[in-house]
């Protein structure tokens, strides 16, 4: 705009006086220039403000060749939700929109409808290139995905030690299932973050059953490290399954694609990594119930088996068999009884015959019949015996007397009376002269006394 000079002021007779609204209209008209409409502008965000209405207000500034330029910017709430990242002061961005004039405020501003971090285009292209390479290597293949262990004991967590991720994971674990957490700390954003993350994965991978690689929400730029081939390679080569929980659900990094499981948030990752204590307890209750029912079932089956056997034991067939056997037994008993009775009566008849025959030979009967006759006979015999005994007795008495007389005449007294003596030597009766020698002392017994004598000489009748 040309400076209004005093000369010119003086030259113009009638200075033009415009209303503000006229000026404002001209400005609006001027700003409607196609060069200011639907354009991309790059710059750094400053004075960032989020209004309570949800609209964003900030400035884009530029410092080229030591010349600073600033333009006010705004993003309506309706466009904010499509941003895909959270603008911050100091952020280099590319913004798309038009310059508008706000007449009631006398201000012009750049009205933005789309915005992305600067360099995002280049980085997006890089990610696309990496993705193609990794895809060709098969890193994202679904058959590569390993199932997560059902009951991990140790879970490695690769994240910032100060962030919310580790807290969220710990909270979920303490509610769900007791596991040991091994935190492998790493810086999760910045130019060297990818190296740290990859190292942290390798450091913990041999100590645990499962690894959670986590990071809270952030801009495209913040999450960029998780696309880096170093990180993705560490995940692919990890000997245990990896759960990725990087950024919000809408943010998908290459690490997410390569992980064995992709969780929307760190809490979600923790939930998927361990079983739920309550459902485990429920299952244990179910198993306990099932075992109990199986046991009861087993008992019932055993009881049924016994009942079945009992039924079989008392089956009609068996009853018939028992009945027949019993009938047969009764029949047999009858026959035996009959046979026995017949046999007995036969034996009785024989016995009776024998008995009558025996009765005929009874001595008592004989005696009764023959006794009187025998008695007479005996009396007679007795008398005859008595008579003959007396006769014989007298005969014998007479013989005895005669013998007695003879014996008496031969007694030692009778002999002594007739002059016979008995010679004894040493009380021994001497019967032979051979028993004597001269001068022997002898005792001579006479009928009326004894005499002692000495032998003078012994003379034999015959010479010896």
């Amino acid at each position, binding site marked *: 705009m040309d400076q209004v000079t005093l000369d010119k002021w003086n030259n113009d007779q009638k200075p033009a006086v415009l209303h503000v609204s006229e000026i404002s209209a001209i400005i609006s008209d001027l700003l409607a220039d196609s060069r200011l409409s639907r354009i991309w502008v790059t710059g750094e965000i400053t004075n960032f403000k989020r209004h309570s209405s949800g609209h964003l207000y900030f400035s884009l500034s530029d410092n080229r060749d030591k010349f600073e330029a600033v333009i006010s910017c705004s993003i309506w709430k309706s466009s904010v939700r499509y941003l895909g990242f959270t603008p911050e002061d100091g952020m280099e961005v590319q913004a798309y929109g038009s310059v508008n004039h706000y007449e009631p405020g006398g201000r012009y501003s750049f009205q933005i409808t789309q915005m992305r971090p600067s360099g995002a285009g280049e980085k997006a292209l890089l990610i696309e290139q990496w993705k193609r390479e990794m895809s060709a290597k098969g890193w994202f293949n679904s058959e590569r995905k390993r199932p997560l262990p059902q009951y991990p004991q140790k879970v490695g967590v690769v994240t910032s030690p100060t962030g919310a991720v*580790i807290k969220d994971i710990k909270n979920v674990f303490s509610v769900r299932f007791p596991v040991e957490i*091994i935190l492998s700390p790493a810086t999760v954003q910045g130019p060297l973050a990818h190296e740290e993350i990859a190292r942290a994965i390798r450091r913990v991978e041999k100590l645990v059953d499962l690894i959670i690689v986590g990071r809270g929400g952030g801009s495209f730029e913040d999450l960029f490290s998780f696309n880096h081939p170093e990180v993705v390679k560490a995940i692919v080569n990890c000997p245990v399954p990896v759960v990725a929980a990087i950024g919000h659900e809408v943010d998908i990094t290459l690490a997410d694609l390569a992980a064995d499981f992709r969780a929307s948030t760190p809490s979600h990752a923790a939930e998927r990594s361990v079983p739920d204590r309550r459902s485990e307890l429920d299952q244990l209750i179910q198993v306990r119930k099932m075992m109990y029912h199986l046991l009861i079932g087993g008992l019932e089956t055993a009881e049924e088996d016994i009942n079945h056997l009992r039924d079989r034991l008392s089956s009609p067939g068996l009853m018939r068999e028992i009945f027949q056997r019993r009938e047969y037994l009764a029949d047999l008993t009858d026959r035996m009884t009959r046979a026995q009775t017949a046999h007995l009566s036969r034996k009785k008849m024989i016995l009776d015959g024998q008995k009558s025959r025996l009765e005929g030979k009874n001595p008592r009967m004989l005696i009764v019949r023959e006794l009187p006759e025998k008695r007479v006979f005996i009396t007679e015999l007795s008398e005859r015996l008595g008579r003959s005994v007396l006769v014989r007795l007298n005969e014998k008495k007479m013989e005895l007397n005669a013998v007695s007389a003879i014996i008496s005449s031969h007694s030692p007294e009778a002999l002594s009376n007739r002059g016979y003596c008995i010679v004894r030597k040493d009380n021994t009766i001497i019967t032979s002269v051979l028993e004597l020698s001269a001068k022997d002392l002898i005792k001579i017994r006479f009928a009326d006394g004894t005499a002692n004598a000495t032998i003078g000489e012994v003379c034999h009748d015959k010479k010896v």
Partner: protein
Amino acid sequence: MLRSGKFAMTKKYEELIAELKEIVKKIEDDSTSLDEMITLYEQGIIIIRQCEERLSEAEIKITELGRET
């Protein structure tokens, strides 16, 4: 007995669950005798108790690794 008991205490939850599944499988088997079934049931109840004790451990242990390898 003491040693085996002690060993059982250090069994992993996963191993306990595997054992429990095996026991249930055997109980379900028709060829298992009633006596065996009763013994298995008793074993199963002991394992379930151990699992429940394990689940009741509330403390979460966190070990932080050093950054340098």
